[in-house]
């Protein structure tokens, strides 16, 4: 019954890996410039658009994409779907790097980074600040994620003593690891409440914490599917179609719940009228909804859901839809007033690309060197027992 995880081995320094390395070096150059000459030297941020892609992609979208560990833990431990347990480690791994690098992005984005520890000092704490809640929660969750992943690292190090200690306390960290994302993924949406009119009425709503939480969980499942298919294609792993199709079966229901909540809220508050106004915002709203509808329509059918191609495209549509929702709310449909505009600078984009490259390199390093992926699938784990 027990699951055997093994490093998949193989050459680490592939051409692919070197390419990522080059991206990291280019990004490092611009990071150095940012710290020497200031944020304005590499980023197109302004007083009207204080938050750009570093916050919107690396933090807000990046941590939502990294919700795989959270979403799978909900499924396995709270909804008792033990058959998915073998997938948890891989999901955790993407979560660990998503969150750790979101933390790194914050250090780059924040202007007075050398005082960042003030967030943890009680004398400075502002308990009214949504940002404080997000900052503390994300930091703590990043630590919790490393603890949750630590058995894999300790196994690789053959440190059985610590492994046993960690396992005895792990249940607490798993519980905490479900609570914390519930808190901060919703609060990432709540961050926008205070911006008021700057956020377009199609996105500014009092239920924004709920909408952010729902989409984060959904994106988490989609990312697990996407990541598994990526590993199948690029790392020559067997496609776990049956398990993936079961995970994908959850996605349409979450998306339906999300769309019903969002649209009925828009109707309830009357903000839906903004759909008929000119400008790109109604189109963006339609595009978000269309991506989600595409996933819903294709995943509701059991016979379509077993096709890897369908699983891949619906996972991608879900991730893109959730990401677009975040980009719209934080950047594209964000309007601080006349005269302000934002498009990320070259250095800004290259820093973000470098961070994504680090994530992929770290993923490859871990799956090749540490016991993350299942060695085999004894007795058809995915099949209904």
């Amino acid at each position: 019954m027990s699951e055997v995880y093994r490093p998949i081995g193989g050459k680490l320094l592939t051409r692919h890996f070197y390419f990522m390395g080059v991206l990291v070096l280019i990004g490092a150059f611009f990071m150095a410039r940012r710290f020497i000459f200031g944020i304005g030297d590499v980023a197109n941020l302004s007083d009207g658009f204080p938050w750009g892609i570093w916050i919107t992609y690396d933090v807000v979208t990046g941590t939502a994409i990294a919700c795989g560990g959270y979403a799978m833990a909900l499924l396995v431990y709270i909804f008792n779907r033990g058959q998915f347990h073998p997938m948890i480690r891989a999901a955790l791994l993407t979560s660990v790097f998503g969150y750790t690098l979101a933390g790194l992005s914050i250090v780059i984005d924040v202007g007075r980074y050398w005082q960042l520890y003030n967030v943890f000092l009680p004398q400075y704490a502002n308990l009214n600040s949504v940002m404080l809640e997000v900052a503390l929660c994300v930091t703590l969750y990043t630590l919790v994620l490393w603890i949750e992943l630590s058995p894999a690292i300790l196994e690789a190090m053959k440190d059985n003593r610590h492994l046993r200690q960690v396992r005895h306390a792990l249940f607490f960290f798993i519980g905490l690891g479900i609570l914390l994302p519930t808190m901060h993924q919703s609060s990432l949406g709540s961050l926008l409440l205070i911006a008021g009119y700057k956020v377009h009425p199609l996105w500014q709503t009092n239920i924004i914490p709920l909408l952010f939480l729902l989409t984060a969980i959904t994106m988490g499942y989609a990312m697990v599917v996407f990541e598994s298919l990526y590993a199948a294609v690029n790392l020559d792993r067997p496609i776990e179609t049956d398990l993936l199709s079961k995970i994908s079966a959850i996605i349409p229901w979450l998306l339906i719940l999300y769309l019903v909540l969002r649209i009925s809220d828009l109707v309830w508050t009357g903000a839906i009228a903004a759909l008929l106004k000119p400008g790109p915002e109604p189109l963006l709203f339609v595009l978000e909804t269309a991506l989600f509808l595409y996933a819903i329509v294709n995943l509701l059918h059991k016979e379509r859901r077993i096709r890897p191609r369908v699983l891949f495209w619906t996972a991608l549509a879900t991730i893109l839809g959730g990401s677009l929702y975040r980009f719209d709310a934080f950047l594209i449909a964000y309007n601080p007033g006349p005269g302000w505009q934002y498009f990320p600078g070259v250095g800004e984009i290259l820093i973000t690309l470098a961070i994504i490259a680090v994530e992929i390199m770290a993923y490859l390093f871990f799956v090749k060197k540490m016991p993350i992926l299942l060695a085999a699938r004894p007795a058809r784990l995915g099949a209904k027992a």
Partner: protein
Amino acid sequence: MNIDRRAFFKIAAAGAATALCPAPAAARPPKELPPEAVGILYDATLCIGCKACEVACKAENDMPMAHDTPLERAHGVAGTWDADNDLNSRTMTKIKVYTSGTAAVKDREEDGFSFIKRSCMHCVDPNCISACPVSALTKDPFTGVVRYNPDACIGCRYCQLACPFNIPKFEYDKAFPKIVKCQLCPDRLAAGGIPACCDACPTGASLFGRLPDLLTEAHRRLTFKPGEQQQYPVRRLDGDEQRKAEVTGYHPKVYGETESGGTQYLMMAGVPFDKLGLPPVGDTSRAQLSETIQHTLYQGMVAPTLLLGGLVFAVYRRTHAEQEDASEGEESTPEAREGRRDE
């Protein structure tokens, strides 16, 4: 069979109920004006656009003037104009101008023009203060001035996102940047003086005073009829200096009386305020809404604690039995992790 799931739902429901029930009662009340609240009344109909306030502000705060080299070369003089055309990280107050059509008559909406002076509004219920995670922005408990403490600030710029008036500015061009905003000349106020911009204003367009008195003065002016000659106090409301001027007529509103829960910087003009570039803020502070929603969910951390208890309990029940197995069979099966299929 899923007892822990049921337990979880019970606990989650209890948590949700705790979180959601007191919502109407827990709505955070709007903030009140501090007892010694001071502020500025800016009257655009008195403003002649001389920008003495800008110069005084820059001198008081040791801020450099911006140069417009082509303009200076064309006119053969330098240092006469401050080239910045809006508030920024080296400009804390700015006179801007509205023009329409022929711009023939001052303080008229059609074919007229009007000045407007922008700076921090010193809100009664400031969004920036609610937003700041490290209390770098604070409201003086007596004067109500919104102050900035760079030693606390982490530079996250959430205050910029939160401010409905786009007031806090950030030094994007510096390696060790700060937030920049008007703090109502704290050294001058401490010494019993008035802010540099009001001190420099020759016409009384920028008038310093206690806020309730400024509001009374503003409403007195709203009763003036166009063409009348009226006495206007200059520099400070409680001072002796007065000046007689002809009333040109007011748009019937004191901007800042209610905006975003009220501000300590009040504005009057002959032209509607949306024409003068003031944003469409409602009468309640967004901080009030944000804090109400957030504190409803996290009141006393009761809901998160209950939820954590439920979650840990559920995970413990699910993993407990297997942990026993795992510690026995660990050596033989290197990967008997805490979790296992329950079927």
